[in-house]
């Protein structure tokens, strides 16, 4: 735990957000001068009240939305649109209903022009990694919400991007499934060694899965605090939820966010 803490400052930033603002057509100001760094190989959550622009910020990093001001650099390069070093996991899964699990997972590779046999071999590996073995030929409508999001996650992993952007990936999934998913995600982070940026509105979820939690204020959003939960994730995942450090962090964040709700 101590070692982990010390190694953090030396980690280089994979994603840099500099002075990003976003004003939507019609004058809605979503983001106001956000400056943030996302260290390589860590999971950073963007946490904030509903409608605070977390998703907007994530989509700006993804290159899906153009910021009104400021810029984003990923792996040293300025973002002008979506890029191969970033992959996105969508809140509503965004699976093609006419395609089976295999084609959905391999779709990023299909768009890149990877040969069928090759991309299906890669996709199989990730279908197995997210626990959907034997569902390769199933269609999305035959899967539960949690399984669909596993497909979305496998699709994002299959393109082997350095940065994984996850937009409230578990919000459309029921509570039990979500817990299991969060536990699996921890193992995945450990195995994949990628930079994760994770948008959530659940304090517990943010603290449970994150190395760093970025608290955003209400719209127009600013960074109100950055918290690094001091929790060891080497142990049994169930232990984390009873860890006093976990519970204290959740409580602290709640105290910080409370006044936005009232």
């Amino acid at each position, binding site marked *: 735990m101590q070692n982990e803490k010390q190694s953090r400052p030396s980690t280089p930033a994979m994603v840099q957000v500099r002075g990003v603002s976003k004003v939507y057509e019609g004058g809605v100001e979503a983001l106001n001068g956000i400056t943030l760094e996302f260290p390589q190989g860590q999971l950073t959550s963007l946490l904030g009240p509903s409608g605070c622009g977390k998703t907007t910020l994530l989509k700006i990093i993804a290159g899906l939305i153009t910021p009104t001001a400021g810029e984003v650099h990923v792996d040293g390069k300025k973002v002008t649109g979506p890029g191969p070093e*970033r992959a*996105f996991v969508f809140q509503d*899964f965004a699976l093609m209903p*006419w395609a089976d699990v295999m084609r959905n997972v391999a779709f990023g590779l299909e768009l890149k022009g990877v040969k069928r046999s090759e991309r299906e071999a890669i996709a199989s590996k990730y279908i197995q990694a997210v626990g959907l073995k034997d569902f390769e030929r199933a269609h999305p409508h035959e899967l539960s919400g949690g399984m669909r999001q596993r497909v979305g996650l496998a699709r994002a992993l299959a393109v082997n991007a350095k940065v994984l952007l996850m937009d409230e990936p578990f919000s459309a999934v029921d509570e039990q499934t979500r817990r299991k998913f969060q536990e699996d995600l921890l193992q995945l982070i450990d195995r994949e060694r990628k930079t994760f940026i994770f948008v959530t509105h659940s304090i517990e979820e943010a603290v449970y899965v994150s190395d760093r939690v970025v608290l955003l204020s209400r719209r127009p959003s600013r960074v109100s605090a950055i918290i690094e939960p001091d929790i060891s994730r080497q142990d049994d995942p169930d232990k984390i939820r009873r860890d006093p450090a976990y519970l204290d962090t959740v409580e602290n964040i709640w105290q910080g966010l409370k006044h936005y709700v009232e």
Partner: protein
Amino acid sequence: MMREGLTHPLLLRVLSVALVVGAWEYAGRVPISPAFPTFQETFAAFLEMVKDGTLAKATWITLKPLALGLFTSVVFGVAIGTLMGLNRFAEWLGSPVFIIAQSAPLAALIPILTFAYGIGLTSKVLTVCIMAMPVIVLNSLNAVRHTPNSLVEMGRAFLASRAKLVTKIILPAASPMIFAGLRLGCAAGFVGVILAELLITPTGIGDIITYNQSIAEYPKMYAAIAFIIVFSVLFIEAIEWLERALFGRNKGQFHAERETVPA
């Protein structure tokens, strides 16, 4: 299982056909009008026309403007509608014409078409087109326009080119609604070809109808009418088979999937 058996579409269809035939036979026997033959007489007239080749010859003649008109309407209709769905300027340019065309009684234009293009094949093909095309265009337009935004975003996030976005995401997502438009458009095309054959010059099936009406040979007239209706229904069914064969999916499942995706 029991419920499924009772509400099986095939059984329901057979049942409703039997009901209509029964009512027809009864009404013919009453008789509600001397000009209304029974089902049996009509069926006999139908068999007679099949045997002496009148029906085959007439169908062949009717098929020509129908096939040409439907082919043109489907190819251009889907292309124009898709273009309008993808491009705001094309939509701005084209949609008023097709919206008016869809809601106006276009049969009123047939005399103008005849005046401009004569009584030949061209006028009849155009009649089929003006009836069939608007609904095909507008359905394609709406289908493309209503591609789920998250799917388009997904395509962009995974670096799809514009062309691949259209062929791999937008068109497959739009296909159920495009096919619904094709079914409606083709049905309207059948209306168009019969209108043309009744109003411009009597040819093909339209000729059998008008000729037998004029000599009071009602069973043959009704046989021709029933035949073209059944032919049209089977044709529309064939489009549905084609859709299933092409996309290998059950429509119900596809829509269920779309509905369960949260907004």
